[in-house]
């Protein structure tokens, strides 16, 4: 292979997708963002580099989907042929930028024959963006020719050949990066967590799965812009557009990796501002997740936050001041996650949140800028920087968030023959049999 084309002197690199594929019916924007996020993560996992998404035009790595001659000396040539390119760190004006041919049929999790696997090509191009040139090594992701999909982005492991070449450029990644934390205050939300479960149809819902229409919830959180409702060992997920991903709950342990197997529920969950890591609370312990994998060294005691050793009912980050609020009983605390320090003068009486009941199940902020408080089967909404519940609340959680009609309860208890039974024992055909199915589209 040719010698590497210099390298970045800094370790924190920002990225942004400036233009998305025009034919986005194949891949939604959230999926494109998530695939770019995970393709960059392939390289940051094995090197001291860190990538964070930003919204502005000052990103180090600008990503474009474009076609034909786009004035950079590497014109595309329609479907097939050249499919993408990226610029080495040494390129004066376009260092790190990556261009993908918008005439290609970009795919994700499609059989080999159809289209071009975006994740595989993106990993290759970001190899150039950090300074790796082509190589003839058969195993390498930096071979110039498209080799087809490389499998599940969450399980992809870089070929050793490529790890060695990136270590030669930047050294290995030690557990703690010695450089100061990047200023990610301007960063846009990181992409949604890719949910790449094994084929769900082979996993029948467990008998003890709760009924979302007739239960209260242990924890509720906005994570990467999506809403998660936790109950027992299960959770429901709603996309950024508030679409329920599935009527059936997913199992916490199958998605949130690293929690103890005997954990039967969680108390509170929130996404930490700044590094967007996700914090789970149960009893006197908490876990920190990077994406959906727990970090080393957890669980730790909640005393780290300066919280009383009684546990936590709820936690959320108030958009108005980016402070983290913890609720327990009829009290609340205010914590600064940027300084990692409890603010003085707390706890205070939760009555200050006028109209919000004590003993909450949880709270969360939502993409409409409001804050939501959950208790039992109801929720309350507080707008913007108010501390008073909006009129017309409480409202039913099941109806407004979880696609339940009034008083409907489709108990998940499945009989052997696959039909579902209502909570009061009445047998009814599964939705699919009478041509009625509730579907939700996710990114």
């Amino acid at each position, binding site marked *: 292979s040719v010698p590497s084309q210099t390298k970045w002197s800094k370790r924190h690199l920002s990225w942004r997708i400036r233009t998305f594929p025009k034919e986005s019916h194949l891949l939604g924007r959230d999926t494109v963002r998530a695939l770019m996020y995970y393709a960059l993560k392939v390289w940051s996992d094995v090197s001291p580099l860190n990538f964070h998404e930003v919204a502005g035009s000052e990103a180090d790595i600008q990503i474009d989907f474009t076609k034909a001659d786009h004035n950079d000396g590497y014109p595309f040539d329609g479907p097939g*042929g050249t*499919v993408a390119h990226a610029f080495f760190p040494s390129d004066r004006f376009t260092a790190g930028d990556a261009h993908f041919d918008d005439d290609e049929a970009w795919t994700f999790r499609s059989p080999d024959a159809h289209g071009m696997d975006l994740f595989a*090509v993106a990993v290759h*191009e970001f190899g150039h963006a950090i300074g790796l040139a082509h190589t*003839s090594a058969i195993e390498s992701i930096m071979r*110039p*020719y498209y080799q087809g999909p490389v499998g599940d982005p969450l399980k992809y492991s870089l070929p050793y050949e490529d790890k060695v070449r990136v270590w030669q450029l930047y050294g290995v990644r030690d557990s703690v990066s010695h450089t100061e934390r990047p200023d990610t205050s301007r960063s846009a939300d990181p992409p949604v967590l890719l949910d790449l479960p094994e084929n769900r149809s082979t996993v029948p819902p467990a008998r003890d799965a709760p009924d979302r229409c007739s239960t209260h919830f242990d924890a509720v959180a906005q994570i990467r812009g999506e809403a998660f409702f936790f109950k027992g060992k299960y959770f429901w997920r709603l996309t950024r557009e508030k679409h329920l991903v599935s009527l059936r709950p997913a199992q916490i342990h199958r998605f949130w990796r690293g929690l103890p197997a005997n954990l039967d529920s969680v108390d509170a969950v929130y996404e930490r501002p700044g590094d967007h890591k996700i914090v789970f609370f149960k009893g006197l312990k908490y876990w920190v997740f990077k994406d959906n994998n727990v970090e080393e060294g957890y669980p730790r005691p909640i005393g780290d936050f300066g919280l009383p050793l009684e546990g936590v009912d709820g936690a959320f980050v108030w958009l108005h001041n980016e402070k983290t609020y913890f609720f327990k009983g009829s009290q609340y605390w205010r914590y600064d996650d940027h300084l990692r320090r409890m603010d003085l003068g707390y706890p205070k009486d939760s009555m200050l949140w006028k109209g919000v009941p004590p003993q909450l199940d949880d709270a969360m902020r939502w993409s409409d800028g409001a804050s939501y408080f959950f208790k039992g089967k109801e929720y309350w909404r507080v707008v913007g920087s108010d501390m008073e519940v909006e009129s017309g609340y409480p409202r039913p959680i099941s109806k407004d968030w979880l696609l339940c009609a009034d008083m409907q309860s489709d108990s998940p208890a499945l009989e052997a023959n696959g039909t579902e039974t209502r909570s009061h024992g009445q047998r009814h055909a599964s939705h699919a049999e009478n041509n009625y199915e509730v579907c939700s589209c996710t990114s």
Partner: protein
Amino acid sequence: APSLTAEQINMGVDWLTKFGYLPPPDPVTGQLQTKEALTKAIKAMQKYGGLEETGVLDEKTLVLMKTPRCSLPDVAEPESHSGRRRR
């Protein structure tokens, strides 16, 4: 093997030039590639692509040239070319 059409040879030379195996034709004299330079370039591309180094644009070589790929060249500017420029 059937002889190559002029179009295939042109496609091959364009491809080899585009991905760094042949120096771009001299803009002033428009000098064409010599046969040995072409053979050498084809062998380098075949080696890089894991093919038998026949030095001719055989079937497998033409197929590989049609495979979707990254736009960036495989080879930095050929040593001889940049050497000449330096002199």
